[in-house]
């Protein structure tokens, strides 16, 4: 077994990643002390695209800046010591039969990919997360593996009840432990679950083309770190495989057909140093002014072309259907769609942490450009009034981290009644479930009592609900709880003006009028 310091560090960070993933969940406290967002905040790719897209800086990404500087000095250590996806690849690579590397994979492709991402970012569209290795891993876990595990455990647990009945209670402490610490609280299924799993599987199957093929031929984070490490003075000597030994070829995780990785591809794992039978290998700082010729880099024209392509690409993905625009409900605190697309890394954490499973990754509902961005789907889950978790875990501040009192006033959309469906209007029967659940203390949904005739012509007193727009934050609980099957009688629609509910309106002393027919516009 490999016990190099690099491997121990890799395993440590992999476990840390898994641990933080599990801690990205509500556990009875309003604040989550540590979440898997720390990894993204140390992700230089997320930083680079954020800088280009948002065109400012955020302290949230300070750790990424640190990693970036360290990479300039030491080289691509992140890939060899930290990246959990890289670790997984190294752990499984032995089981994957190797084949011949297709020529298109080697060389330019990764630079083109990175250039495209940067170009798109410059145009305001942050696509980094789609190919970011941490995001690929996290999404496969959030949307596929974790729900699957939860569903399997839950199905088994329910099955036990069918078999054992009440005596299942004897096993309850064990299941509680499992459920409280390892499994998702709610059983939810996600769109794009299979796509997310396939993306990770593809990355793993690429191992067929060599050890850590993804990292060397495609990964945009690896490519970016590689480019930065060109400036690092750390060099391995001897520079190539010695004719009389060649042991490093067996131990190096990124060796390529008899050629030891140079600067850009070396992950600084020091496996070759430990493995060298003749103690020849050493890593040390070279004089940065006397560095040997730098390895191949595609022509500047090529990189610029890629950037330009990215710019155009970003524009090309803009189209959204009218229906998509109407229901473009973003997490609370997101006020501007363009700013959101510039800052969101599509890591899926907000969707993982969402208490009521209200957030889902968009397939095409937010347009092509919105792939994997979070959308609130009220019929499936609503935004819990006092909950601030999505803002807490968002690594880039795309969803702002707001205190409770502020978040409660942030507008996701506005509720609208459909009188052709809503029971009191359409069926002349009392209901008011929406008003009952509306969390706004002064009620954004109210009802007026009217004398009416029921469908049989009998005189009845009916409570007809209506929305007080100034108070509605679009949390969607009304749409969620509407007892109608199928289409809800009240729905949340996106709005352009997301000015938070004014404190004055929200805190205005409640008029003591029974029946709720006070005029909110007064």
């Amino acid at each position: 077994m490999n016990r190099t310091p690099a491997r121990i560090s890799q395993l440590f960070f992999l476990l840390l990643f898994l641990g933080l993933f599990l801690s990205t969940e509500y556990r009875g406290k309003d604040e989550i002390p540590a979440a898997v967002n720390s990894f993204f905040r140390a992700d230089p790719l997320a930083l680079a695209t954020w800088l280009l897209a948002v065109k400012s800086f955020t302290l949230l990404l300070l750790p990424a800046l640190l990693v970036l500087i360290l990479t300039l000095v030491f080289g691509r250590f992140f890939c060899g010591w930290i990246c959990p996806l890289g670790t997984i690849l190294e752990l499984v690579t032995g089981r994957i039969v190797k084949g011949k590397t297709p020529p298109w994979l080697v060389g330019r492709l990764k630079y083109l990919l990175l250039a495209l991402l940067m170009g798109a970012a410059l145009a305001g569209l942050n696509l980094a997360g789609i190919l970011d290795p941490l995001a690929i891993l996290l999404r496969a876990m959030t949307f596929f593996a974790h729900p699957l595990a939860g569903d399997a455990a839950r199905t088994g647990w329910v099955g036990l009840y069918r078999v054992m009945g009440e005596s299942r209670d004897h096993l309850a402490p064990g299941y509680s432990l499992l459920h409280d610490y390892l499994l998702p609280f709610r059983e939810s299924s996600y769109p794009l679950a299979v796509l997310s799993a396939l993306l990770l599987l593809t990355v793993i199957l690429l191992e067929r083309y060599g050890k850590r093929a993804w990292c060397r031929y495609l990964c945009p984070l690896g490519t970016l770190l590689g480019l930065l490490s060109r400036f690092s003075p750390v060099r391995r000597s001897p520079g190539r495989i010695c004719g009389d030994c060649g042991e490093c070829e067996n131990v190096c995780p990124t060796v390529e057909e008899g050629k030891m990785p140079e600067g850009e591809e070396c992950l600084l794992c020091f496996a070759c140093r430990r493995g060298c039978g003749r103690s020849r290998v050493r890593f040390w700082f070279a004089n940065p002014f006397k560095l040997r010729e730098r390895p191949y880099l595609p022509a500047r024209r090529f990189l610029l072309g890629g950037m330009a392509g990215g710019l155009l690409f970003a524009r090309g993905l803009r189209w959204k259907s009218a229906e998509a625009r109407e229901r473009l409900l973003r997490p609370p605190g997101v006020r501007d769609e363009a700013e959101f697309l510039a800052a969101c890394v599509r890591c899926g954490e907000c969707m993982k942490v969402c208490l009521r499973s209200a957030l889902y990754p968009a397939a095409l509902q937010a347009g092509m450009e919105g792939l994997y961005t979070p959308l609130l789907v009220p019929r499936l889950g609503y935004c819990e009034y006092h909950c601030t978790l999505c803002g807490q875990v968002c690594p880039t501040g795309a969803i702002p981290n707001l205190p409770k009192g502020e978040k409660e006033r942030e507008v996701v959309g506005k509720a609208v009644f459909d009188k052709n469906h809503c029971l009191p209007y359409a069926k002349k029967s009392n209901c008011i479930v929406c008003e009952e659940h509306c969390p706004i203390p002064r009620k954004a949904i109210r009802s007026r009592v009217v004398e009416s005739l029921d469908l049989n012509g009998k005189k009845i007193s009916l409570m007809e609900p209506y929305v007080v727009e100034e108070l509605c934050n679009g949390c969607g609980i009304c749409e969620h709880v509407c007892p109608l099957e199928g289409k809800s009688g009240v729905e949340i629609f996106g709005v352009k003006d997301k000015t938070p509910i004014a404190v004055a309106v929200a805190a205005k002393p409640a008029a003591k009028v029974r029946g709720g027919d006070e005029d909110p516009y007064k």
Partner: protein
Amino acid sequence: MERREFIRLMAIAACFTPRMAAAKELPVVGVATGTDYGKITRNAISAVGGMKRFVKPGDVVVVKPNMGWDRTPEQAANTNPLVVRAVVEEVLAAGAKKVKVFDRTCNDERRCYANSGIQGALKGLPNVEVRFIENERFKKVLLNGEALKEWELYGEVLSANVFINVPVAKHHKLTGLTMGLKNIMGVMGGDRGKLHKQIGPALADVNAVLKSHLTVIDATRILTDHGPQGGDPADVKIMNTVIASTDIVAADAYATTLFGLKPADIPVTVAAAKRGIGEMELKKVRIVRV
């Protein structure tokens, strides 16, 4: 039971029967006031005969508070945790084997259990289970009622020896007020929103089958408007009162008066009284103030 013991018990029962029959005419409502909420809860329970009257050693007891909303105790949307704790302690003192406390919440169950303060208040008490609802435990129960033929009820309630209903008294937009009779919705499965069309008869149907052996109403503070959820401190009124009764309708009827309303104003109470579940005429109720 030994035969001798049985005969002795019958003899004792025979001595008491005439007096019991006389007392049976008027349902008793215990009303305790004061600022020590644990104490007034115990006083109200003593006023209706004490917990030992309901709970026998070895019983499994369900205590059902209202903790349906992600609101704090002072917002008066959930039962006061001090009242719940006192009830649970009394149940334990009476020798219960197990006390189960739960509610089918409207907001996220984790937040409701935590922020209602009830989970915290019961922490550390022995033989007390505060678990979330598990859907597989709902069982279809034949009600043969006026509004509902059948409905899913929570298995833990059906299998318990004693069911103690511990609601908070508060405003409710649709039903006027919500108290004991409506608190029963927390053990009902299915799509509860559908009940709202005919909520009075529907709740009478369920309460007719699922009897609350003891109802303890928390009116330490009441929500007077924007119920059932509230949130505005201006709607909360401090009453420092706890009400207990074996007659759920009588308990609800008395609590109604705290809002300045008459029992007849509350359709759910009226429907339950009409069904013979209890007495809503306060003139026909013996009120014991402590």
